[in-house]
């Protein structure tokens, strides 16, 4: 099942109020995605924690197998 990019964008922005997220399908297969995210919650956090926040927002879609891989790019 291909991921719903808009839904994922919404999940990230809902979990991190004030965030701006773009989710793109890197391979055209719908399961290897790239998220570019900026969020006020990232401030002062380590890169690992920034990634953890984004992953936590879409955890459900990892667990149900919709997403195989999510490359995360944190935007300042």
């Amino acid at each position, binding site marked *: 099942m291909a991921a719903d990019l808009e839904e994922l964008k919404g999940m990230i922005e809902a979990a991190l109020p004030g965030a701006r997220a773009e989710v793109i399908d890197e391979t055209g297969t719908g399961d*290897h995605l790239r998220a570019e995210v900026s969020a006020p919650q990232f401030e002062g956090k380590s*890169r*690992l924690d920034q*990634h*953890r926040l984004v*992953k936590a927002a879409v955890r459900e879609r*990892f667990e149900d197998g919709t997403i195989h*891989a*999510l*490359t*995360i*790019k944190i935007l300042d």
Partner: protein
Amino acid sequence: MADQELTDRVRELIAENDVLLFMKGTPSAPRCGFSMRTVQVLDQMGVEYGAIDVLPALQPLREVTSEISDWETFPQLYVNGELIGGCDIVEEMFENGELAEVLGVEQPARAEPAQAEAPASDEPYKSPPMQIEGS
């Protein structure tokens, strides 16, 4: 709850190997594009590293790394006992020179993002692939 014996084994491996990569497949035969890209970065750094193929025990290892490092996806690179990150973070740190700093090596002259070219050579990689069997 992660298996205690496996958790202890993983902690040992992280402590014993200055540079340790948990990956899908082996450095000479990666089974995932992200693992392959991470191997390509490490090979360009010219460091010796240990590699663990997570595929034989994927789910138990996910539970273990989730508990140890709050990180569930592979590849995972550890340097001096600390989680560095997955492919995206490793590539980003490679490009901006932070990875060379963490590894204590010179930044390679041609710092190009690793692309899906030839499979990684097994040259700088010295330790035999380690396997953890599912319990």
